[in-house]
């Protein structure tokens, strides 16, 4: 694998990793903007704007955009999160120029009023769809509770109200302030020739406006809390917890990744043996999510309503034990093997590398090869995890539950 990087005069950063053994190439524009960069009045605009990108530009109608992507056989899409809006495509190498041209074009969309009005309906449908999904409802409410008063607590989709009120001028102004070359990263992974890629990027992206609006980042200081959303007629009770964890540029993140595998992976973890294997829950997991300036341990389980209180106590018992006694050498060795295998498997596909490459630059501005990631995983010690737990213990700090229960007494 060979790594290349460059920066255009307008500030656009380009990073690329060439893998001679693969047959395709993945490219993505990582725009460093998302829900946390919004205000109440424009809540949901980042995600709505991501949809509008596919509605066309001065040169391409909406039909053209979808048609051209399909003509080159691209696997393409976009996603919006709290901090990053990503536009990507994976194609055969001969279609890379067309794909780059189209991707670089659609992130400066026309935002035509009639398209805006029509797409509003689709966004409202998407909100409706998620309303019917209990795990999503819980996550959304938990982010708002855990990050209350902090920009990370903002909803990605927005509300039916904020979307209904949103005007295309507001979207235009948000786009002008956030979609500037210095706030965008282009990443590529797979089969390509670097000089060709660079000259194509110059051709398509040189005219972009310069500038970098940045983002004010502070580590959240969550106060925690509890919220129960009663949903009559539901069958399962869904519970999610959050607690603070290392921020994205903290070197403790590697220990946090391994700790999450040891405590909450879908097989062989503490939560698997104490909750899933005995049949106390339908599913249970703990993950580590990194953000700009903050991080969270996110715990989830779904179970029969009458088992909820006992399961809350079981989770607390696991956390108490881990916080007090740390993890064993054997557990760590097992987690290292699992994570190493995942890194290798994921790296075999250009899309897998694109995601890793892009996030390393968005959050840390550094290149990490597969070999470097494997080496880091090998060198994390149980003492590193001890240090992590002393700073960021596992907790049921912020909790949201939804399901048929009308009350839930615990602690």
């Amino acid at each position, binding site marked *: 694998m060979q790594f290349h990087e460059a920066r255009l005069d307008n500030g656009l950063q380009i990073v690329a990793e060439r893998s001679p*053994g*693969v*047959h*395709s190439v993945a490219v993505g524009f990582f725009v460093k903007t998302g829900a946390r960069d919004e205000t109440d009045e424009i809540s949901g605009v980042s995600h709505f704007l991501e949809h509008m990108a*596919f509605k066309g530009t001065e040169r391409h109608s*909406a*039909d053209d955009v*979808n*048609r051209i*992507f*399909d*003509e*080159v*056989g*691209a*696997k393409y899409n976009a996603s919006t999160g709290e901090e990053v809006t990503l536009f990507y495509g*994976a*194609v*055969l190498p001969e*279609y890379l120029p067309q794909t780059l041209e189209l991707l670089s074009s659609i992130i400066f969309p026309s935002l035509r009023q009639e398209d805006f009005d*029509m*797409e509003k*309906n689709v966004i*409202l*449908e*998407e909100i*409706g*769809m998620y*309303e*019917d*999904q209990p795990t999503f409802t819980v996550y959304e409410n938990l982010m708002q509770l855990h990050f209350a008063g902090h920009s990370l607590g903002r909803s990605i989709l927005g509300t039916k109200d904020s979307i209904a009120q949103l005007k295309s001028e507001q979207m235009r102004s948000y786009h002008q302030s956030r979609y500037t070359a210095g706030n965008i990263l282009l990443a590529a992974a797979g089969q390509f020739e670097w000089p060709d890629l660079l000259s194509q990027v110059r051709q398509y992206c040189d005219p972009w406006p310069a500038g970098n609006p940045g983002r004010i980042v502070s580590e959240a200081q969550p106060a925690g809390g509890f919220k129960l959303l009663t949903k009559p*007629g*539901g*069958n*399962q009770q869904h519970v999610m917890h959050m607690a603070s964890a290392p921020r994205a540029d903290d070197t403790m993140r590697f220990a946090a990744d391994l700790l999450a595998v040891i405590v909450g992976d879908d*097989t*062989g973890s503490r939560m698997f*043996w104490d909750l*899933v*294997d*005995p*049949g*106390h*829950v*339908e*599913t249970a997991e703990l993950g580590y999510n990194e953000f700009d300036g903050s991080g969270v341990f996110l715990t989830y389980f*779904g*179970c*029969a309503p009458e088992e909820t209180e006992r399961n809350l106590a079981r989770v607390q018992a696991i956390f108490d034990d881990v916080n007090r006694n740390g993890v064993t050498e054997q557990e760590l060795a*097992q987690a290292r*093997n*699992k994570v*190493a*295998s*995942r890194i*290798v*498997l994921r790296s*075999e*596909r*250009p899309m897998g590398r694109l995601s890793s490459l892009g996030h390393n630059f968005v959050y840390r501005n550094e290149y990490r090869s597969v070999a470097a990631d494997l080496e880091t995983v090998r060198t994390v010690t149980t003492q590193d995890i001890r240090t992590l737990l002393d700073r960021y213990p596992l907790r049921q700090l912020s909790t949201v539950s939804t399901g048929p229960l009308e009350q839930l007494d615990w602690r």
Partner: protein
Amino acid sequence: MPDQLIHTHTFPNGLTLIIEPMADVASAAFSLLVPAGSIYDPPGAEGCAAILSDWIMRGAGDRSSLQITNELDNLGVQRSEGVGASHISFGGATIAEALPETLRIYADVLRRPHLADDQFAAVQSGAEQTLLAIEDEPRQKVMLELRRLCYEAPWGRPSEGSLEGVAAATPAIVQQHYQTCFRPHDAILGIAGKVDIDTVVAQVGELFGDWPSLPAPPVVTGPRGPYRDHLPQESTQTQIGIAYDSVPYSDDGYYAAWAVVGVLSGGMSSRLFTEVREKRGLCYSVYASLNSLRDQGRVLCYAGTTVERAQETLDVTLQELQRVAGGIEQSELDRCKARAKSALIMQQESSSSRAAAIARDWYHLGRVTTLDEVRAKIEALRVADLLEHIHQHPARDFTILTLGPQPLEVNLAVP
């Protein structure tokens, strides 16, 4: 296309092994299909196969449940167990060097499971909770129930079983399911990745060569469901499921059928996405897919939309499904071909995708189609072939299921 070498080997006891070495990966993956799926669930104990797929991993040979999980984790195996109508499937991928030890563990799981009584209650509880979780996921629920309506029993039955069936299952019933269904005849093992053919054949022979054969158990068939149904639920959206007859994977006309569904729903320039979502803003999610059993196929179509827009969504979707008979542009077919070409090539970057594909091919066809062969068939398609397929298998006799606060009317007129 890159060169592709596929080796198949059927052992005297009936087990078929298919191997595809891949030069550019460091991983190896396997897909193991055992003919013990939910169609063999005893009447009254629906969910038996689902229970078995979990129970069987909980101790085998000289390993406890804990040891199996720990050893597979230590080998870095990304694993999954699943139940379908015809098979219980075991799949896994890891670093190639770990494959031989992984297969040794699975040989014990398949041939020497403990199926210990003291694990049964936990497994049963897990199966029950899986069913309850589906009840809370309307999008999944509507498509599961659509299958039940449009296929005859037991093929259309949810492979997860039913709450009553899971409750009625006992250790003895599930052990009996294992005894009659777990057999090498009709079992398929696909392996793809950085592997050596001779080494794999020798090892699989050693592990499974003396697995004794058994006759295939009978399948008790029953009628399909009604063509129209509504499941009342207080939800924000109405879920719409539509099914109609098509052809199975083994049919000569399969690729034409595939391309017609591609014109309808392959990519964002396809008709359903364009007409239902882009032009009218009726929903976020709408799609059609071609679903295949061994000897029959259906087009399964989904749309989810808020109650006020549900009627129009159903009307427009039905119109589009029928309107395709009126003509297809060459450019629509060309886009299907382009998507197929890149999907086929990208499949060669993933050992898991290839392992699953070769095992699936063997089940449906009794042979493996090379990617070159698939590509040639797709390249040869003409618009006339697609229209001929529609003529033979028109979109009609729809099975329509809705789930939501109100039922909908079915208007089949095409303006």
